[in-house]
């Protein structure tokens, strides 16, 4: 049986950054990833990464903006740690070879982003995620890290003492099911955009790590906080960076009005994302949109600036909407984008489950609270990838491999065999996915009604029932994507239940969670995290609460949040 000190699931920015730290500490580290590392969705991040590297900026200011952006439910110890570590983390990436854009004088260029009181978003044109991802992959190749490529994790395995023993993996290329033992497992599997029908995410973003952790007994936190990005393309939902507004782009409605002045008189288009998305949704609901969208207008920036700073955005708009941003406004709308929630961890990435760690979007550390600031997600991956990787290396030194129950592999094999052997009972996986994801858009979107959320929660048992009826067309062993997607759909349904139950329980409006029946923030009762647990006996998600980790600074005392 293959074994490693540390097994990292996922090869995006967080996973690869953690792996490098493990190598540096001299432990045996391996990565399992269902897609080649360079296909990871970190590559789709466009606008940039925040760090107070300008002497006129400060880490305190970055931390304050983040606490406020999070609507006072972020864990302050983790936020301060992230903002403190940010400049060095960026400079490390620079030294590894990331070609950050430069300003005159040669320093790393920074642009304005939403909710920030300083232009502190470092960037490489509008493909910052791609160059960071390629840089880390280059370092991964250099460090000769073992990567189980195109292998999906099917189960997180614990021993009799509820400590991590390893994972059961599935080699997509061959169909082989095999155990991987490890002293620690780090989930860096990213988000679950596919829970929503309209989303900015890759189709591979199915929240596998969160769902596996939940089923293994680790709590997820704050799953009701789903970020709707203000500028997803109307038709496909594909992302248009906040950097487009950072470079001076306007949001206009169908009447041509720059409507943000009504909602955020000071920061306008650069208010935080929850505020901008609500403003857009209000314009659309009140009839000032067109075909369900409003518009991002870049025309006044001129062709040179668009081609220099936002070349990819222009191309994507051409390819996917048939609109040339140099000559016409781009139709956009609020689109499910990012999960503030995830596997609950402390500021070192450790979950309550012994030996399980998480970093990046899969984790809820929580630095993003109820609303993430643009430019803080790339930062989260790099900083907490590093911190958690280092912490894991320390952890495994005091651990030995746990007993790995052989029955776990057999159970996965028999599940997969049964799934493949199902006869046609009339439910196609895509139809079930569509029903679930459309329901999530409808019932748990930018504005949430009590009836909608209740309808959503009530739909879960029938989704689970029909999940038992889906059947596959592909019965082969090798490269069976049909099978993989069926497994992923199971994960999505678990996560949808966490999101819906969390949303219905949280009787207030905070950050991205906006209820029509409780429009105000309620700090007295709800300045707390929601925890989701899997109740295996009942087969449902149950909830509890967890305190926000505060550091006692008066600056961080909740106040009315305006932009």
């Amino acid at each position, binding site marked *: 049986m293959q074994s490693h000190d540390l097994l990292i699931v996922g090869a995006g920015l967080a996973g690869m950054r953690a792996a490098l730290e493990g190598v540096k500490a001299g432990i045996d580290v391996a990565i399992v990833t269902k897609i080649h590392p360079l296909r990871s969705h970190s590559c789709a991040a466009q606008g940039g990464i925040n760090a107070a590297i300008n002497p006129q900026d400060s880490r305190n200011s970055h931390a304050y903006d983040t606490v406020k952006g999070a609507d006072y439910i972020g864990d302050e110890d983790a936020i301060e740690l992230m903002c403190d570590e940010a400049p060095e983390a960026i400079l490390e990436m620079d030294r590894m070879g990331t*070609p950050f854009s430069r300003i005159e004088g*040669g320093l790393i260029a920074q642009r304005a982003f939403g909710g920030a009181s300083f232009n502190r978003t470092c960037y490489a044109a509008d493909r910052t995620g791609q160059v960071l991802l390629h840089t880390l992959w280059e370092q991964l190749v250099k460090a000769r890290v073992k990567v189980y490529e195109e292998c999906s994790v099917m189960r997180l395995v614990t021993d009799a003492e509820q400590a991590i023993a390893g994972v059961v993996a599935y080699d997509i290329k061959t169909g082989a099911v095999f155990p991987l033992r490890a002293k620690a497992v780090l989930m860096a599997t990213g988000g679950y955009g596919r829970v929503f029908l309209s989303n900015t995410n890759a189709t591979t973003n199915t929240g596998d790590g969160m769902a596996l952790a939940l089923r293994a007994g680790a709590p997820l936190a704050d799953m009701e906080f789903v970020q709707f990005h203000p500028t997803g393309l109307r038709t496909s939902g*594909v*992302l248009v960076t906040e950097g487009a507004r950072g470079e001076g782009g306007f949001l206009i409605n169908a009447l041509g009005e720059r409507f943000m002045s009504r909602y955020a008189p000071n920061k306008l288009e650069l208010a935080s994302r929850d505020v901008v998305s609500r403003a857009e949704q209000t314009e659309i609901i009140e009839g000032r949109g067109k075909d369900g969208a409003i518009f991002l207008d870049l025309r006044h920036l001129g062709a040179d600036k668009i081609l220099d700073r936002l070349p990819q955005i222009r191309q994507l708009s051409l*390819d996917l909407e048939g609109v040339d941003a140099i000559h016409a406004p781009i139709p956009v709308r609020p689109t499910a984008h990012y999960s503030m929630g995830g596997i609950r961890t402390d500021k070192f990435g450790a979950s309550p489950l012994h030996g399980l760690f998480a970093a990046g979007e899969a984790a809820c550390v929580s630095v993003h609270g109820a609303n993430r600031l643009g430019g803080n997600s790339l930062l989260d991956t790099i900083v907490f990838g590093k911190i958690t990787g280092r912490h894991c290396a320390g952890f495994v030194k005091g651990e030995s491999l746990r007993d790995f129950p052989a029955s776990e592999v057999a159970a996965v094999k028999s599940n997969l065999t049964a799934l493949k052997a199902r006869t046609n009972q009339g439910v196609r996986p895509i139809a079930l996915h569509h029903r679930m994801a459309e329901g999530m858009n409808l019932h748990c979107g930018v504005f949430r009604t009590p009836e909608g959320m209740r309808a959503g929660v009530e739909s879960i048992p029938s989704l689970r029932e029909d999940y038992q009826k889906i059947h596959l067309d592909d019965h082969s062993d*090798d490269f069976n*994507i049909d099978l993989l997607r069926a497994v992923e759909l199971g994960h999505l349904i678990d996560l949808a239940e966490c999101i819906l139950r969390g949303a219905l329980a949280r009787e207030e409006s905070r950050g991205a969670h906006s209820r029509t029946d409780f429009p105000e923030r309620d700090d007295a009762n709800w300045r707390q995290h929601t925890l989701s647990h899997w109740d295996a006996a009942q087969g449902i998600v149950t909830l509890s609460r967890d305190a926000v980790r505060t550091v006692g600074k008066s600056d961080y005392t909740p106040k009315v949040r305006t932009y």
Partner: protein
Amino acid sequence: MSENHYTFRIQRNRKAADGRIDSRWVEYPVSATPTTTVLTLLEEIKGEQDGSLTFRQSCRSAICGSCAMKIGGRTRLACKTHVESVAHNGVVEIAPQANQPVLKDLAIDIGPFFTRIHAIRPYLEDGPDTDLVLEQSAYDQVNHVTQCILCGSCYSDCVMAEVSQEFIGPAALAKAFRFVSDPREGQKERRLEQLSHPHMMWTCARCAMCVESCPKDVKPMEAIVKLRTRGIAKGLKDGPGPKHALAFHHDIQKAGSLNEFTLMMRTVGILGTLEELGTAFHLMKKGKVPSPLPHKSKGLEELAKIYEILEEHPLDVETKAKEVVPE
């Protein structure tokens, strides 16, 4: 926009018991507006017609590089290709990438492609230990090639890869140029020396297929030409590749046209020329052998001026990037 009817003619590939690939073409009808992407329709076919249809995809936005496949005879990213642009009489023909082993349907084994990328040592070597302050234009050359997402389109369409599996290929060479042109790289000369070996930068036939097929406008061939220029500048002039290039350069500058009669001799030497005698006789029979007598073209003064201007103001015609790298 109204919907058109299209027929997706897809090459379905299955591994047989003996390990060989069974290949057949299957047609699927779809309806779509002309600007619907091919990936959207592949997903529709997989979801609603045949779940066993297998292909890679992920980001839907031309940045992850998963969905490169042969569409209408050329390798393209399915996620950014409009169906109408690749339909011939309503038929869209789709096959896996070429020059690489097929796993199943449209999915290829990406291993051999990445082995080539690994071979050029794809990481900054001896990079700076201190924080660097760089010219604003320091990455003008780097930026062009770092747009590469390693989707493999160029390798799939590369005519040299088709005839020689040993050729390292355009993507790997573009990646190599990414480091050779980086002001922070510490091993430029060693890289250029290795790139001068057989099957590396001098094997490219400069057919520009990679420039045509690249979905990210990386222009790998331009990078290869720049690598060659730098190699020669570093004195790496051995081998038929650089000799051929130098002979070409010499003839054009001096006479305005090639002396093809002696070009072969200057490229591969006397022994190499003797080996090619068969080809020469063949050409002679067809009347394709040029006059052995050297001749000069008219207007050589103008040519001399063009050379002069270009040498004084070197310009990267394709990328418009300035040469700023301290060599």
